[in-house]
């Protein structure tokens, strides 16, 4: 896990790229003036806000991150179809349940990304991260973290935990190297 970027003037390279693209999309143009303005904004905004932001781990494997994003987008499409079928079927066939998934990730940014992907993918909504942040003293690291998820139709608890860990958590660990 690395917190500091290579160049001091570019603290968050990928977020700068995102700002650049978002500015051009917002203006819906590729004229020279807007490109120059987008470059300036993409450099100035991260620098101006870096003082009141906590340091987050950087994406160290952009190629893998892109592949993971494609996988998640594909899963979102299948998730939509699956959940639509579950919703339209009879209610009595659904077996909801709460499942605790042990986490290997340690930093808040990867955990947030994992929780969001879990919420967007088939039949699961992430509910809570244990242990509670309030129960820890400042700077203390808990021994083990859990993600509590609610499942719409729980069939095999262990299989579900394995899928989440292998399909979504392992690539994230690789991307952030933590």
């Amino acid at each position: 896990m690395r917190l500091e970027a290579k160049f001091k003037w570019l603290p968050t390279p990928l977020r700068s790229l995102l700002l650049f693209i978002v500015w051009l999309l917002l203006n819906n143009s590729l004229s020279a003036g807007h490109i120059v303005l987008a470059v300036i904004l993409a450099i100035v905004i991260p620098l101006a806000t870096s003082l009141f932001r906590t340091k987050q781990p950087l994406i160290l494997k952009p190629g893998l991150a892109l592949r993971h994003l494609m996988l998640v987008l594909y899963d979102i499409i299948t998730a939509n179809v699956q959940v639509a079928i579950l919703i339209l079927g009879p209610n009595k066939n659904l077996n909801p349940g709460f499942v605790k998934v042990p986490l290997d990730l340690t930093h808040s940014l990867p955990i947030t990304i994992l929780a969001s992907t879990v919420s967007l993918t088939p039949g699961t909504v992430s509910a809570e991260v244990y242990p509670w942040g309030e129960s820890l003293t400042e700077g203390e690291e808990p021994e083990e973290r859990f993600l509590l998820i609610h499942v719409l139709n729980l069939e095999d608890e262990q299989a579900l935990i394995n899928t989440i860990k292998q399909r979504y958590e392992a690539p994230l660990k690789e991307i952030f190297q933590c």
Partner: protein
Amino acid sequence: MIEWIISILLLIGGSFVLVGSIGLVKMPDFYMRLHGPTKATTLGMASLLTAAMIFFSTTQTGLSVKEILISLFLLLTAPVSAYMMIKSAIHHKLDSIERTKGKDNIEDDV
């Protein structure tokens, strides 16, 4: 031809959003109700926005790509709002239906 593509995308989008809303009404408890709006609507909105993108790109001059931004913001905000709602539901100890498994996995808050 393009009219056909736009109409089909609009129909797909509309039906997914409708299914999400049906889920909101039909499900027996709060936790299960959350599943419809968080998932069934993302694909629905994506189809509607793609239709809008094709429509405005073909009828007006120039490419219209603003809709990509709307999808991006929807993808970012849907999980966060779902998380906030389920977190407050757990905090208020809302009842889930009888056959819910693993209820003891919920820890008491501090």
